C-alpha cells in the first residue's frame, strides 16, 4: 500500500538572481512500512522535500499525499490533525529546554488533548520504548546528544503516527551514537510498522537502515532504487561518490597506487560480491586453477537491509595470458570485476 505519494512537485523560491528551483519535478511513491532514504549534498533540495511532507513548506506546483491526507492542499485544523499522524525528528533535536524529559514527551499529547492520566501512562511506555528509564525528570541540558534524540523520537511517536520524518536526525551525533539511534529506528520500524522517511548526506545511514534510496542533486531525483541495487550498480557520478563513502575507505586509492609502484607487473582488480556470492571460496579456487599469485590488498563487507555487499581489492600477477584467464574465471562466478590498474 502506498503511504506517501509525491507527484510532479516543484518548489520555486524567488531570489535576487531570479528564481531558484529548490525541488524540481520530483515524483516518489513510498510504501507503508518502508524505510526510505533521500541522500544528497547540502543544497540538493532534500530538506525542502521532506518539509513538504508535513506541510512546513508548500509546493509551488504538484501534489503531496501522506497517509491519505493531501498535505499540499489542506489548511488549518485539518492540517494540524494530519500532522499528528506525520511526526518529525530533527538534526538539532528541538526539545523545549524548559521542560523535563517526561514533560517534553507529554507535549504532543497535550496538543492532541489527551487526558492527564492517559498522558502519564503513554509517557511511561514511550520512555521504556526508547530506553530512557531513570532520566525521566532530567532537563534536556542534562542529557547527551543521543539521549536528546531519544527524547525527540519518543515525542514523535507519542500520538501513534503513521509516518516518521527524520531531518538529518543523526548528523549531529558521533558515529557510535548514530548507530545506536539507527538501530532504534529499525526496531521501531519493525515493531510498529511505521513508515520512515529520512534525509541525510551520509551513505552509511542509507546503507545501514534504508530499504530504498533516492539520490538528489540540484533539486532533482537523479537515481532511485533498492539500496543493494544502487550499491551494486550505481549509475550517476554523484551516486558512485556516495557509494564510495562506504565501500572504499579513503586510503584505498593510495594503497593501490603504492602497490602498483612496487609491483609494476600484473593487474589490480576490484571484485564486488553481492549476497550469497560473498560466501564462495573464490580466491582458493582462483589460485588452484591458475598459475598466478594473488595479493589481497583490502576488503570490506557492508550489510544493508536487503542483503550484504562486499568489495575486495586484489593484485594479480603471473605469466602472460594467465591473468586474463583468471579474470574471465572470476566473471563466471557472478562476481563483479573491474580492473583498476594495468601492468
Amino acid at each position, binding site marked *: 500500500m502506498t503511504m506517501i505519494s509525491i507527484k510532479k512537485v516543484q518548489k520555486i523560491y524567488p531570489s535576487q538572481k531570479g528564481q531558484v528551483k529548490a525541488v524540481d519535478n520530483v515524483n516518489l511513491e513510498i510504501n507503508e512500512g518502508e524505510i526510505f532514504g533521500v541522500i544528497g549534498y547540502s543544497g540538493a533540495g532534500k530538506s525542502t522535500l521532506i518539509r513538504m511532507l*508535513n506541510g*512546513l513548506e508548500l509546493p509551488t506546483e504538484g501534489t503531496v499525499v501522506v497517509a491519505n491526507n493531501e498535505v499540499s492542499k489542506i489548511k488549518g*485544523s485539518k492540517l*494540524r*490533525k*494530519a*500532522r*499528528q499522524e506525520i*511526526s*518529525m525528528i*530533527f538534526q*538539532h533535536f*528541538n*526539545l*523545549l*529546554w*524548559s*521542560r523535563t524529559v517526561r514533560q517534553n514527551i507529554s*507535549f*504532543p499529547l*497535550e*496538543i*492532541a488533548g489527551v487526558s492527564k492520566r492517559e498522558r502519564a501512562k503513554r509517557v511511561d511506555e514511550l520512555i521504556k520504548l526508547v530506553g530512557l528509564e531513570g532520566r525521566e525528570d532530567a*532537563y*534536556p*541540558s542534562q542529557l547527551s546528544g543521543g539521549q536528546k534524540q531519544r527524547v525527540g523520537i519518543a*515525542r514523535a511517536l507519542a*500520538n501513534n503516527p503513521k509516518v516518521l520524518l527524520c531531518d538529518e536526525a543523526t548528523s549531529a551525533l558521533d558515529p557510535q551514537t548514530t548507530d545506536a539511534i539507527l538501530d532504534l529506528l529499525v526496531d521501531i520500524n519493525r515493531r510498529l510498522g511505521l513508515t520512515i522517511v529520512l534525509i541525510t548526506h551520509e551513505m552509511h545511514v542509507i546503507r545501514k537502515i534504508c530499504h530504498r534510496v533516492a539520490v538528489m542533486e540540484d533539486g532533482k531525483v537523479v537515481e532511485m532504487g533498492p539500496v543493494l541495487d544502487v550499491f551494486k550498480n550505481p549509475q550517476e557520478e554523484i551516486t558512485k561518490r556516495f557509494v564510495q563513502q562506504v565501500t572504499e575507505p579513503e586510503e584505498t586509492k593510495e594503497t593501490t597506487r603504492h602497490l602498483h609502484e612496487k609491483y609494476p607487473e600484473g593487474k589490480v582488480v576490484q571484485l564486488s560480491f553481492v549476497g550469497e556470492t560473498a560466501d564462495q571460496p573464490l580466491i582458493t579456487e582462483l589460485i588452484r586453477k591458475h598459475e598466478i599469485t594473488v595479493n589481497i590488498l583490502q576488503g570490506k563487507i557492508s550489510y544493508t537491509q536487503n542483503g550484504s555487499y562486499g568489495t575486495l581489492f586484489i593484485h594479480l600477477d603471473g605469466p602472460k595470458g594467465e591473468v586474463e584467464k583468471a579474470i574471465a574465471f572470476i566473471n563466471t562466478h557472478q562476481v563483479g570485476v573491474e580492473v583498476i590498474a594495468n601492468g
Partner: protein
Amino acid sequence: MDNFLELIKWEKLILAMKETIYMTSISVIATFLIGLLLGLLLFLTAKGNMWENKLVNSIISVIVNVFRSIPFIILIVLLIPFTKILVGTMLGANAALPALIIGAAPFYARMVEIALREIDRGVIEASQSMGANNGHVIFKVLIPESMPALISGITVTAISLVGFTAMAGVIGAGGLGHFAYLEGFQRNNSIVTATATVAILIIVFIIQFIGDYFTKITDKR
C-alpha cells in the same frame, strides 16, 4: 537622639513607603500584562512569523518607540487631561498609575520582543510539526521558553518604575519621592531626604533579589 529620631517623621515615612510600594506593584503588574501583549504582537507580526503583518507591526512599533522616548516627567504633564478623565483627579497614588504604566509598558514590550526572538526557531517549528495551533505555540512554547528573560526584564522595568514613582511624587502622587521633596528638600531637613533614599534603596534591592531568584529557578538551560 530622641530629637534625631523625631526628625525622621516615622509615621509619614511608613505611609510614603506604602504608597510607593502600592504604585510600584500595581504598575508592575499592569506593565507586565500590557508589555507582554505588545511584545507578543511585535514578535508575531514580524517578518517570517505566525501572524506576519507589516502594517500592524509598524503601527505598534511606532507607538512603542514614541512612548518609550518621551521623558517620564514630560509624559506625566502630557497625560494630565487623560488622567483627569480616567481617575477624576491628578493628585494621589492612583493618579500616577496611568503615566507609570504608559511610560513603562512600551519599554518592557521591547524587552519581551527581544526575549522571544532569542527562542530557537526550530523549537517553534517542531511544535507546529506536532500539530500545535497558535494558542499552543504562545502559551506552551513562547512564554515558558522565554520565561527567564521575561522575568529579568520585568525586574529591570520594576526598578525603573520605583524611580518613576519618585518623580511622580514630586508633582503630587505621594510616596517616597513626594516625602523626600516636601518634608526633606523644601523644609531643609536632609535627614528625611537621606532616610527616604535608604527606603527606596531597600525596595530596589528586594525587587532585584526576588527577580534574580525567579530568573535562576526558571532557567533550565
